[in-house]
């Protein structure tokens, strides 16, 4: 499991970055990058104001 960001939906607001306990997310200008520190806690999924983050089964 991991999370993916739909970059066509993302409004690059940084909310997800600020709540990620693993520092796995980075807002690079207008998109989000995810590194492998992600532990699938889903915190970012619930915080995203527009629902751009999905947790996906690998």
């Amino acid at each position, binding site marked *: 499991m991991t999370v993916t960001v739909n970059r066509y939906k993302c*409004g690059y*607001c940084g909310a997800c*970055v*600020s709540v990620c306990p693993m520092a796995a997310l980075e*807002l690079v*200008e207008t998109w989000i990058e995810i590194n492998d520190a992600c532990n699938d806690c889903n*915190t970012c999924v619930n915080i*995203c104001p527009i629902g751009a*983050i999905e947790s996906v089964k690998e």
Partner: protein
Amino acid sequence: MKDKYDVIVVGAGPAGSSVATTASKAGLDVLLIEKRQEIGDPVRCAEGVDKEGIKRHIKPDPRWIAAEVKGSRIFAPDGTKLQISEKMSGAEVGYVLERKIFDRALAEQAVSSGAEVIVKTSATGLIRKNKQITGIHARSIGESVDIKAKIVVGADGVESKVGRFAGINTTLAPKDIETCAQFLVSGIEADEYCQFYLGNNIAPGGYAWVFPKGKGIANVGIGVLGSLSNNGMPVKLLSNFVKHHFPTGKIIEMVLGAVPASGPIEKTIADGFMLVGDSARQSDPLTGGGILNALDAGVMAGTVAASCIEKDDVSEKALMEYERQWRETIGKKISKTLVVKEKLITFTDKQFNIFAHSIEGKCDNTMGVFDIVRALFRANPKLLWEFRNLIK
């Protein structure tokens, strides 16, 4: 860009520009870096700010004032209206800004004070010598660069990474953040008042707002407490709110964002390092206002940076003066509003209504946030016992 400065400030929002202006005016060699290619854009703000507070930092200029507001109104879930005057209603009303232009004006002020600004440049890590932070690793228009400084200031907003690089835990728990959506709505009626709507169906653990931006146009937004939100809730709730209140309104801009609502965090300094503004979680947990606190903290950080560099001591111990100053002022304020916020998020709609009725008509045009709390306390002594320390 040189390879060495007295101070590097990361992030050109209000906090960063304020630090850069203050430190440059004090004679320091300052670099202000901004990861976006355009300072101030995209906006992540409802743009309401206290007039007098702003005047401490920059001369008012019609280019960045979208509207002036007389005061604000709060609506309880059943529609009961409480009106408060401009002078007393806290830090969120006075001007409604055009932040794209305002943030750039603040950066211009930093430049004219002597700072160097570089855009499309992101801090990606910190350089350390032993424990001491001595500069940043950066990505500047796609190229990796290292830049040295006596002091690095993190002013990188809600998504701050720099604090974490410095070993300061700035991660926000979902209960300590408001997740927000806002539309710029045109073709509507909006008078010279900022309006706030409370209610658990409107905005769980937060509120909806309407901030006028001139004739027929307003920022209409919603903030939801992170712990009560789920995937995409703010945009969904806002769409309903706009449909209900402004059925003929046209949406001409969309803003997403988040505001820290944690109250003071444990630590904002390290050897050769300071955190300022939203990255230091200095925004108001109750209102979500953070512009003025960011500007004020920026002045404190810039001033302390100058005196520490002059004394050639940038240790955590020396920088403690910054920490002391902001806790004494901003820290005290946001600790108080945190108590109010923590209480308000437990309210049911029925309680909101009862409280609003209990002071309806008693607060016309005279009250500030804490006067309202005081009036509520008088009308409902038992339920509001938790607020007693705020109103002595």
